[in-house]
């Protein structure tokens, strides 16, 4: 998960490295993801979200489809 100045820079990087162009997140979406994942990370009760929780977190941020499905087998 890398930073870029713009979507155009992402497209150039994918082309230059022969890597498929995959989802691009705004900084605000990335922050929502960071809070959902890490807000309680320093508490003893913290744990990795289970697949169903992950789907709910992603959907709340507008991230849906096989790419965001932790149990998808649609990618090599």
């Amino acid at each position: 998960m890398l930073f870029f100045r713009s979507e155009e820079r992402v497209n150039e990087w994918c082309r230059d490295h022969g890597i498929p162009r995959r989802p691009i997140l705004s900084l605000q979406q990335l922050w929502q993801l960071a809070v959902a994942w890490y807000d309680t990370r320093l508490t003893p009760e913290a744990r990795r979200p289970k697949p169903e929780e992950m789907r709910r977190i992603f959907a709340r941020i507008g991230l849906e489809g096989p790419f965001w499905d932790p149990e998808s087998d649609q990618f090599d």
Partner: protein
Amino acid sequence: MDFDTRVKAAIYRWFADTTKAPAAPEIAVVLGEPPGTIRDAYRRLFQKRVLFLEPDGETIRMAPPFSGVPTQHRVQVGDRSYFANCSWDSLGIPAALHREAQVLSRCEQSLEPIHIRVTREGPRTAQVVAHFAVPAAKWWADLVYT
């Protein structure tokens, strides 16, 4: 609290306080336990996907969002400077610490510096995006590249 949870909490506290990954003997001193017992807990936490260990089976490479090795993602929180594993984790550090931060990274294509001010409400810089190259189902299998 079970033993592995105590070890996990001590690891995260150590990272937050020192910015560095703790070696098993350091956590052994904190918890008053033998180093071998702590090493065993590290390995169990790796199997549970709480930690990511180096191939030696005992050095912490990642305790997300913290990185045990230098990366291009630096996160300044007060007078402490952390390394994050990726763009997501660079925002994850202020989210986990509940502190304001400055994220210092780079555009991976142009290599120009990226500087993001993060307040308690979130990032204040607009002209940055993040690309997710690896699908969610593959994150753990390819964690270093992810």
